[in-house]
């Protein structure tokens, strides 16, 4: 296979380096936070994560190697495959921790909704190309009903509140970027403000008990300090006790001593914060912000509209994940159970994030291709 030299020259080494640095920080943190504190209690989370990382890097380069334009041609079939996967989860999914999110494929299990969010971004980006700017209310509503509502319901049914929320936010933010008529924006604002109490009730009634608890505990963690409030309290203790410079690598206790639940998955930021302190957190946030701003820059510089919408969609997706996850560990947002991109332990999430990052790098790498 012949590799175009311009591809290597234009390859987005900055984004790739950031992703790699985050992944290495992730493995270090997973190693520290799952280390055995009681003799005989071995864990191998970090080894599995390293394996996933190697696969992830390989997939990233694979994604970069073909032109993303190709994806726009297959966006609809991809979407259908995505929907089929979601259906199969509902039918044959494996139940874990009260939710049916995983498909079990003999040697490994994966979470289709994790991949669906990327398919969804590709699909919406593709769909929006064919639409004139400044969508009216009618077209927005019909797209929502036909293409968003169905997967949303299926993901909620699993239930995977985090991903469902993500799909909705990606759809709305991409619509805003694409352009909505002013009166539509005004209308959406008014409707959402007026309907909050009503929708609030419907949504509240539709929530599972543990989801309700999370919301209640978010508002006042002391209501149930032993239950869900415990997550938030212990997360704050872990972050706060890190102080300015942190307790030092491998010196954190909240995670390995199990005071901090889900210390290597959803709450890995808190475990990181305990060991690296404000300085470490600040640098980590800078890395994430740099990655996001690079993504936005990629969107601006993209050579076509599909590339631009794709880059914006993926960047927003990462942004929402990062902001919600960190906000959750800081007690700024309710616990919705979504991972921190590139940091949280978990194979499916890591792979889908590497695919997403690959697409972003792909768009940037090919930003000049129009001219040859």
């Amino acid at each position: 296979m012949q590799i175009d030299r311009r591809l290597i020259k234009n390859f987005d080494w900055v984004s790739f380096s950031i992703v790699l640095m985050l992944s290495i920080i992730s493995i270090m943190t997973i190693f520290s936070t799952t280390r055995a504190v009681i003799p005989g209690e071995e864990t191998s989370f970090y080894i599995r994560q390293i394996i996933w990382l190697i696969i992830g890097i390989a997939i990233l380069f694979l994604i970069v190697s073909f032109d993303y334009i190709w994806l726009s041609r297959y966006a609809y079939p991809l979407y259908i495959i995505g929907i089929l996967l979601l259906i199969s989860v509902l039918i044959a999914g494996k139940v874990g921790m009260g939710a049916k999110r995983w498909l079990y494929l003999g040697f490994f299990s994966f979470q289709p909704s994790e991949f669906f969010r990327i398919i969804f971004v590709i699909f919406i980006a593709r769909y929006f190309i064919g639409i004139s700017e400044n969508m009216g209310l009618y077209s927005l509503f019909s797209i929502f009903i036909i293409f968003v509502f169905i997967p949303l319901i299926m993901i909620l049914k699993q239930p995977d509140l985090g991903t469902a929320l993500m799909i909705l936010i990606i759809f709305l933010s991409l619509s805003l970027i694409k352009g909505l008529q002013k009166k539509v924006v005004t209308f959406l604002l008014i409707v959402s403000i007026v309907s909050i109490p009503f929708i609030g009730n419907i949504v509240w009634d539709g929530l599972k008990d543990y989801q309700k608890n999370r919301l209640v505990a978010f508002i006042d963690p002391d209501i149930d300090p032993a239950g869900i409030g415990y997550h938030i309290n212990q997360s704050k203790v872990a972050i706060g006790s890190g102080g300015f410079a942190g307790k030092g690598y491998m010196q954190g206790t909240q995670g390995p001593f199990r005071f901090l639940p889900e210390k290597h998955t959803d709450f890995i930021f808190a475990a990181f914060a305990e060991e690296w302190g404000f300085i470490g957190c600040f640098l980590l946030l800078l890395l994430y912000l740099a990655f996001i701003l690079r993504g936005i820059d990629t969107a601006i510089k993209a050579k076509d509209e599909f590339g631009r919408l794709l880059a914006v969609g993926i960047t927003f997706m990462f942004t929402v994940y990062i902001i919600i996850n960190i906000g959750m560990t800081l007690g700024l947002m309710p616990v919705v159970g979504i991972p921190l991109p590139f940091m949280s332990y978990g194979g499916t999430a890591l792979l889908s994030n590497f695919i997403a990052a690959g697409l972003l790098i792909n768009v940037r790498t090919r930003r000049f291709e129009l001219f040859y």
Partner: protein
Amino acid sequence: MDNTSRQRIIISAFIICGLFFFSVVKLWQLQIIQGSEYKKISIENMIRIIRSPAPRGIIYDRNGIPLVKNTPYFCALLMPEHLEKIDISTLAQILSMDSDDINYIIDKSSLSPFEPIKIKERLTFKEVASLEARRSDFPGLVISTEMSREYLYGNVGAHVIGYLGKLNQQQANDPEYKEVPQDAFIGQWGAEHLFDKTLRGSAGEKIIEIDALGREIRLLQEKAPVKGEDLNLSIDINVQKSTEDAFEGKAGAMVAMKPDTGEILALVSRPSFDPNIFAKGISFKEWLALNQDKKVPMLNRALQSQYPPGSTFKIITAIAALSEKVITPETKVTCTGGIKYGSWEFGCWKKGGHGTISFHRAIVESCDVYFYEAGKRVGIDKIAEYAKKLGLGSPTGLPLVKERPGLIPDTKWKYENKKQPWYLGETFHSSIGQGYVAATPIQMAQLMSIVANGGYIYKPTILKMEKPPEQVPSIGISQKILELVKSALYGAVSEGGGTGGAAKSSLISVGGKTGTAQVVGIKKSSSSLPEKYRDHAWFVAFAPVEKPEIALCVFVEHGGHGGGAAAPIAKRAIESLYKENKIKK
């Protein structure tokens, strides 16, 4: 790319930067502003302090005989994290408890999810065996060993040795007990209480790091418990025991001291209680029963019963009259069975009278009329002065319980308290230890000790002395007078017609004096009255007369005459000291 789309994207970039800024502000708040606070919480999160009580010091009698021992026993504890997996009703069955009781204990102690809950103490071997056999059915069950106090002589000496109990609310807040583990037993009575700090030693402390499941991760600091110091009491358990046996069925008190040191050789208060029931953790019902018992076993009669000392008080009247030279040993008084004073008659206990009698025989036969005369000559204020010199009217200072002071009346006292002048008739009464005069058994024992040792006051103590105490200042009574009194007291026991004959011993020379405290005014033969109207019996004694090594006071509630009820007990106490083991210095 069109400009509006580009603008929108750039606006979104600013919004994102704003959100990141927001997170940094929140991080600043948590880590910089509240950092130290959270650091404290994170340390408290994982530190547990486990206290282990130290073995208590052993209490010995003066001859090195142990009076208590520490016995290990088993306790059943449950780790709260495993509670859900445990079948409480089966556990209740094995421990012969009620499921509701176990659930109550669990509910009550759910304060900390990581502290083991004590379900039952003092498991029998059968219970331990059944639990061990079915260990897999009870995850989180811990069988621990604790130490309990066993009082080897049961209720003998209970008022001196004391007992242990759990910290009460007041003690829990007392800084004196801040090192004591919450669940520990501490001294609540007697020597166990007085010398608790010495006996309890210092509790061991383990600071461990634990994880969220309460599992020990590492030992950060360990301080081994230091066994409490042993204690040597001045008590001679043989004297104590034989005296208590002699009290069988009677209520009263006995205090025996070493006259040359103030060491208490025996201190009896009957009825008594068994300190072992306290060491087991007394139930509310048992506690109520003890406190409501009409015989008041919790009253330390040796220090808390005060009654007119009766004729034993004649020793004081005699010393006062001889010292003030209003009588001499040769002074004779004629007793015709009583004297007349105005319209009142003051009788002698001997209806026919003693005839003409001198000092020595007056003591030997306890002639009331002789001491009416002696009292009249010396006056109440002088009697009171000597009585106070000899330790009456104020506590002796033995801190076992709140001691009663007794009462020595004089003209000033009468005026202040009764707003009346003193009458001569009252001097007659006081001279023979009746009327307002009141004393406790320990005061009378101390009095006897002062007479026996030649006029020195040694503060009573229940601790064995390692070396003889420093010579205390003399109370300033002529040795000659004291010798006269002692010789008369010897006569009261050994001579014919002496009232203390029942104390006469073939083993050793004994001096003593009987006394009877009137309970009711009517003069009637005591033995014909119902017990509760009978007089209280006193007997004070010392031995051997030549060089006294023991001085004592016996008090028998409603015992009738001192000679009949109290003197034999005194004899038994003195003899046991010489029979079982010659007194050790």
